[in-house]
């Protein structure tokens, strides 16, 4: 599942299982490209939740997670951060991070 969420929705969804949070900006080319990559990543994993958080509209959440730039991917397992990637990443790198934490 790929879903754009606000802070409140995010907190409701991030506590169970593997959740990949994508902190993005609508004014960022690499973020747009990462959107296509994440669609491919989603196909690899049946039970992965990908939540997209607009960096500019959710400042408190980005601060809470220490996100200082975009795009930033934060992988959560049962609500706890287990992995992080900054900048545009290719699919194999993201897949590897998820597989390492399954």
């Amino acid at each position, binding site marked *: 599942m790929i879903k754009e969420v606000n802070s409140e929705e995010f907190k409701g969804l991030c506590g169970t299982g593997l959740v990949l949070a994508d902190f993005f900006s609508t004014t960022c080319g690499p973020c747009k*490209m990462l959107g296509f990559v994440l669609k491919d990543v989603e196909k690899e994993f049946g039970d992965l939740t990908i939540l997209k958080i607009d960096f500019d509209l959710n400042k408190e959440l980005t601060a809470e997670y220490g996100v200082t730039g975009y795009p930033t991917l934060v992988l959560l397992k049962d609500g706890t951060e287990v992995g992080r990637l900054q900048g*545009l990443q290719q699919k194999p790198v993201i897949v590897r991070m998820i597989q390492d934490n399954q």
Partner: protein
Amino acid sequence: MSVNYTFNKHLIDQQAEAEEAMLKELEAGNYTIDNPLVKYNLYLISPLTAVVCFKTEEAAAVTVTVKGKAPQGTITHTFPKATTHILPVAGLYSNYNNSVEIRLYRGASKSIEIMVPDVFEGKEVIYSMDTTPEYLQDDVILLSPAGEDLSIAFDYAGDARWHMNVPCVFDVKRLKNGNLIMGSSRIIQMPYYMSGLYEISPCGKIYKEYRVPGGYHHDEWEMEDGNLLCLTEDLRSETVEDMLVLLDRNTGEILKTWDYKVAFQKAFGDINEDSSKWFNTKGIGQSGSWSAHDWFHNNAVWYDKNTNSLTFSGRHMDAMTNLDYETGDLNWIISDPTGWPEELQEKMKKYFFTPVGNNFGWQYEQHACLITPNGDVMCFDNHHYGAKKADTEHQLLAKDNYSRGVRYKIDTDKMTIEQVWEYGKDKGAAFFSPYICNVEYYNEGHYMVHSGGIAYDADGVPSEQLGAFAGQGGGTLESITVEICDNKKQLELHVPGNYYRAEKLKLYSDGINLEMGKGQLLGAMGVTKEFETDIPMDSCGEMMPESCNARIEDEDDRFTFFSRFEKGQMVMLLLEQGEEKHRYFISTTAVSFLAMCCGTFLDSDERNTRTSINKAGMKGTYDVRVIIDDKKYETGVKITC
């Protein structure tokens, strides 16, 4: 509007054409010592040189003398006996009607004039040179580029006597055969990864380009057998500036590779883990400029025959590291151990030194490590931040900082280190360079210390930004090069602009100086990293918008796509041949580089992009198309590989 297309011949081809034309002219004419054929800047890239040709009936040695503005500025060289004389003339003055004397051994002489235009186009290239002709003699101080100012060499009087008009960046060294070795002028990836190395004559003729798949950066080294060590990386991996290759001097083939990730992992980690993953996780020994991508930032290599080992300077670990040449295993590390993980403390004891003696200071973000004949270790200690990344309490601002040349005595049995010499600390921020620079060892007590990265912001305060960025922000850049002999300053060169390194050398060598024949393109370009994810989209049939101001410069072994995009646009360059697609993502986000050792290729307009694609791995003719956000545009250009 279709994209502008040009095909650029390699410099080797252009130079071969110029040389062939000159040789034809020489053969067709009756050129004697009284009527020589004179070709100014024959090889196109060295505008303070010329070639003079003529024939003599009897074989004779010939002396070429470029007359100095003062007698002490005269540069002269004698060439071996021949009947056909093709003589490089080096050391011409810019914006000057040069007088050059050609004299046959015990025979006739001829004085010719070579008018050289102002090759610096009115730009101030020097503030001062403080030395004596007795000290510098006919040596020059050659400064290699770190910014928009290209290679230049100054004589004792501060006159420019050598210059290159193409961006051959980073280190310049004299090879044993008298040729010069330096970075090529072909950038394959921003910010400064070059296609390889040029071996050139002092008059700019490229004998060989050694192409390296992962590109060249920062430094190179000639081994005793003539093979070349070249700093490189795997541009298809997730990290940069962390590998070394040994190149066959005759073929350019890679004979041996050292990957520092593997060396560190063997020493401190689990060798069964994927090295890039291990490193990104650990991030050990971080300097103030550290990033996961550029974790080591290797800016120098030195081979020591006595210990058959390689010493590397790694700016982003504040470390000089020594590896065994044969095994690649880590021998020792000179670095402040602050901030290394607790669990590695036991393993660290084997590799780290304990300071002894008084007046000791660690180096931070150093450059240009070297090993002296007695095994001491020297470097230019940039002293950037003056503390490790984790030690924020002790980090220094530029205005409170200093740089220095430093020499350490190490005992690899007791693992102790003693500081035995330093120069520059007392000059404070006026000598502070947060990046680049070098030291040279000439003899005991006789050194060069080149602080080539001094930068002030627009208000005249020592800049927190590296020179390339400070300059773009309206600041001023300087380089100060000092030579010290027995604690007495013998030379101080002060120039505007930042320069990567300084080297003292003679323009002419004891070698051949100029050989005829076409240069060689050796080695191979690597396959350019592609973007795996496809963006399913049909061409809209339109040409790229005129606002992109796009152009393609094609070459035999690669092409470069230049275009302007607005920040935030999603851009992908595509090469398409039927079902075959190659995708290259172009970032439109301003990137803040933590290391910009060479800002030569930075564009003042952040919207302008430069994307170089190697033709390696492709065959046939490809349509070039560009995706910009939700539209796929035509360029009207086909690339043949």
